[in-house]
Structure formats: C-alpha cells, structure tokens
C-alpha cells in the first residue's frame, strides 16, 4: 500500500510538460536533413563573409574601391589573373575581385532579406485581408493581384529607375512592390479554406473580432507555407537584384555588387576568365544554397510531400 502511494507521488511530481509545436517538429526534421544543413552552413559562411568584408580588405590590404592601376593591371591595361597579391585577380580598373565579392555579398544579402521581408509582409497582410474579409475587398485585391502579376516587371523597373536614378532603396522597393502578389495569392488560397473551419466559428462565438481572428487564429496556420515560400524567395530576389545591376539599374558605381561586377566583365571575359567566373560563382553558390535550404524547409514542414 505504501509502495503504491510512493509510486503515485513520483508520478505526480510537478513537471513542466512542453507540447511539441508543429514548428518544433518541423525544425527537428530539418535538422536531420543533410543537404539542408550543408546549405545552411554555406549560407552562414556567406553571411560571415558579408559581415567581415572589412577583414578581407584588411588582410589583403586592398580597400574595395581602391584602383591599383600599377600593380593591379598588366602593362597593356588589362586585368591581372589570380596571384599572390590579388588572390582572385583584379578587374578592369585594377580592383581586388576577392574584396569586392566580399563587399558585394553585403548588397546581395541586404537586398535579398529586406526586399523579401517587404514582399512577405505586404503579401501576407493583403492575402489575409482578401481571403478572410471576402466580398468587395476580396474582389478588389484579387484583381490587384492579377494586375501586378501581369505587369512586365523589368520594363517597369527600367522605367522607374530612369526616372528616379539607381539606388539601393529603389531596388528594394521595386522588387518588394512587384513580388508580393504571388505571396498574397498563396495566403489568400489558404485563408479561404481556413476561414470555414470550425475553430474560426468558435472564436467568433467567444466574441473575437475580425482582426483578432485574422492574426491570432488564422495567421499561425498560414505561417508554414509562408516560411517555405520566403526561403525560396530570397534567392529569386538576389538574382533579380543582380539582374537589375547587370542592366545598369542597380547601385551606382563604384559600389561593389555581384551583378554589376558581372556586367563590367562583359568586355574582358575572353581574356580575363576570373573576372566573370568568381562573381558568377558567388552568385551561383549563394542562390543554390538558399534554394536547397528552401527545399529542405519545405520537406520539413510538409513531410507528406514526395522527396524526388
């Protein structure tokens, strides 16, 4: 008898029971995904490179915009290949490509993250409003989504930049204002089915208002697809930013960014392969890492999806 009571005591000992959230479970699956973890490591390296870009400049002794017309160029005025002083070679103005790639990572990541955040915030809020409020709001927003998706992005970007002049703000705004529509469409679709669920009616019967239901009850249920889409959106934004720079619509020179470097290499790559290869590789590795990581996130959040 006493033994039984003691056992009960052991079981009844107060313990904090932490529920496993769907998010925590997804994180656990993600941690087991080798490809995703390697991609994450690469992403971390790139982020570190961006943060410690000044260290690259200090170690090599070459500031990013310093033109070494004497030691950085051949007597004919052509870029120099990789060597002991310039590890990844120089560009047409005798600047250190390695240091410029490191500084370029700052631009790519900054634009990638900020433009994506803007995109996702606008997309989620408008998608939620359209899907949940329905009626005239939905009709208007759904048409707006269609319009934004059908506008030729590059043409508008070129027109806009020719008016305002190239700058980081314009790049971010242009990307943000034209990418939200697809996020909004995804969120709207999810919300349309979620709002018919009984827990929404339950919230209403408790006296919850529209905004509370939207942000407290529905939003947590669309977070998973939004996170997946976000990780897959970052590389798209980085490439878009590089594209704009390549077309001369990015950042005004001499700021180092990858698209601009590739653009500058156009007249030299037949003789100076390193000039186009290394910035191109930086862009490729970054987008690949984000894409593979995004795939991993998608699999982690939706374990039923086929891994083919």
């Amino acid at each position, binding site marked *: 008898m006493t033994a039984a009571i003691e056992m009960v005591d052991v079981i009844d000992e107060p313990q904090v029971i932490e*529920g*496993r*959230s769907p998010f925590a479970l997804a994180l656990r699956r993600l941690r087991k995904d080798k490809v995703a973890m390697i991609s994450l490591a690469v992403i971390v390296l790139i982020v570190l490179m961006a943060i410690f870009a000044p260290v690259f400049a200090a170690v090599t002794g070459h500031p990013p915009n310093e033109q070494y017309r004497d030691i950085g160029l051949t007597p004919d005025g052509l870029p120099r290949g990789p060597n002991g002083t310039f590890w990844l070679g120089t560009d047409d103005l005798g600047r250190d490509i390695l240091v410029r790639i490191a500084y370029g990572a700052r631009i790519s990541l900054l634009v990638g993250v900020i433009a994506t955040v803007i995109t996702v915030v606008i997309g989620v809020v408008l998608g939620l409003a359209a899907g949940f409020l329905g009626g005239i709001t939905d009709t208007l927003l759904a048409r707006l989504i269609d319009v934004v998706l059908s506008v030729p992005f590059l043409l508008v970007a070129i027109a806009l930049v020719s008016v305002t002049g190239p700058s980081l703000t314009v790049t971010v705004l242009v990307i943000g204002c034209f990418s939200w529509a697809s996020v909004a469409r995804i969120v709207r679709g999810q919300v349309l089915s979620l709002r018919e669920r009984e*827990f929404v009616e*339950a*919230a209403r019967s*408790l*006296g919850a208002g529209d905004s509370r239901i939207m942000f407290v009850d529905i939003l947590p249920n669309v977070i998973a697809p939004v996170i997946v889409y976000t990780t897959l959106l970052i590389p798209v934004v980085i490439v878009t930013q590089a594209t704009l720079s390549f077309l001369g619509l990015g950042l005004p020179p001499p700021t180092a960014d990858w698209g601009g470097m590739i653009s500058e290499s156009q007249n030299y790559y037949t003789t100076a392969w390193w000039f186009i290869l290394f910035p191109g590789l930086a862009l490729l590795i970054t987008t690949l890492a984000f894409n593979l990581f995004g795939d991993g996130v998608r699999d982690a959040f939706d374990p039923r999806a086929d891994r083919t």
Partner: protein
Amino acid sequence: MNEVLLKVDDVRKEFPTSSKEVVQAVAGVSLEVRKGETLGLVGETGCGKSSLARCMAHLYDVTSGSVWFEGRDITKLSRKAMRPLRRDVQVIFQDPYGSLNPRRRVGSIIGDPFSIHNIASGNERKKKVQELMELVGLNPEHYNRFPAEFSGGQRQRIGVARALALRPKLVICDEPVSALDVSIQAQIINLLSDLQQEFDLTYVFISHDLSVVRHVSDRIAVMYLGKIVELAPTGELFGQTRHPYTRALLSALPVADPDTADSREQIILGGDIPSATNPPAGCRFHTRCPKARLDCAAEEPVLEPVLDDRPEHRTACFYPLTVGEDLSTAVPDLRAS
C-alpha cells in the same frame, strides 16, 4: 424553472445557393428555453438543427423572425453590441478536431475567452485556465500542449472548458458527442450534467442520437426539414408520441434486449429527406408519412397541443397518433376522395 431564458420566435434562416435558389435551413421555428433546463433538439442530418443553434447564438443573422435572450432581441445586434452577450451564451461544437486551432497551445485556446473580454492576463489567466482544465478533468500540466496531442474525448473537454470559462448562462451544445466513441460519449455527457448542476447552466443539446438526447433532456424538440414537428417533455415524448416522424425515430432506437427488439414495431420510412431548396407543400413530412392523407399535402399543420395533451406537449400533425396505435401497418392515402 419556468423563467424563459431564450425565446426563438418564428425564426427562418435561408442560404442562397449558386443557382439563385434558397435552402430553407430553418423554416419558421418558435420555441422557448427555460432557465436551468436542458432542451434537446433532435432530427436527421440536414434538418436544420445546427443552423437553428447558430441562429440562437447569433453566429448567423436570421433571415426573418427574432431571437430573444433574457427579454432582449439579439437578432439585430451588431457584432460589437453582441460582444458582452457572448459571455452569457456559449457554444460547444461538434467536431473536437475542427473546433480547436491546431497551431495554438491548449492553454491559450482555453484562455481565449479571458483575453477577448479583457478579464485576466498573465499569470492570473494561466491560473484560471488551469483551474478550468482541472474542472473538466484534464491534467493542468498539459497547459502547453497542442490539440493534436490529445484524444478526441480530451479535446472535447478542452472545448467544454473554453465554453465554460466565462460562466455562461446558456450553453448551446451542437452535437457535442457525435464525433466520439460511445464510451467517451458517456464521460462527456456526465461531465456536462455535473457542470450543469454545479454552475446552474441551461443547455440546448443538439444531437441526431435520440438515446443521448433522452438521457440528458428535460424537454425535447423534434425537427424535420427546418421545422419542429413535436415538442414535449421527455417522458411524454416517449410515452405519448404523437407525431408519426417522432415514432419512426423512436422505433429506430436500439434496444438492449434481443427478445423485445425482435417483437418491436419497426417503422422504416421510405425515400430520402426531401430537398430543403424545394420542400414539399403542406406538411413537410407527408411525402414519407405512413398516415399521410390528402389534406396533409394541401395545408401545413400548426404546432399546438393535440388530442388531450397538456399545453407543454405540442405537435404539428393533422392525424396525431394515439397511445398504442400501430403505425407499422398504416398506409398513406393521398387520393382525392
């Protein structure tokens, strides 16, 4: 016992369909819910019980008619004006899987009523939630768990805890046990009746299962195709069944004793429940009624005491059954005489 808490007066609820027709989910229902009682509401799937429940809780705007709570017409109240009343009228939903938000922790789900009405926050809310969890038989330590980590019965307890958080006067139970195993059904029903005694609750208890309703209800309303066909105190509904539809429902109840089960009257209704977009004229049940006569198709019977019934026992039928009448041999006769 006799004070009226909720009064439903000729409520209609129509839903538009895509093809410009309307579904008459509730087609003119009047009833009263008295303080402290349990009013059962039974009927087949699709007869409008849940729509009526949602009209009572003002989750739907009624098409016509009115709902009075404590002498106040709540049908025209805006969502904002309705908010204080939400504390007094609560709903327990049918599907314990659908009515709890899968992405939120149980503690915050049960805490919703407190945060929506700004009653308690922080540690005070947590304490209240844990008290509620204990009250409905859940382990308060599971405060941080997600709904997916509970069984169906436990989830329904969560739904009960949430509904009772603000000590409502009226709880509308919309098929609270239909989605549960029979053994769990009993637990939840017992929990509900314990809570009724403890907090002096009034229930509207909806179910398609007459045996469940019989067990919990003081009075029972039988619905068919958006209308109440018979409304009576539980004992009278079973003892002096007046409406052929009610009798048919009763005959479908399982009986534990196989000997009586074999000899028992079996009434099998022909056909399906007619479409609510185009309900039959006259008595809505005449297309399936074994006692149907020509005037049943022409005129609609009124819900009123029939034969020698007390005023509490009301039936909408021109040819009510007498006690002991054998319905299984009755034949409908819809020929013009």
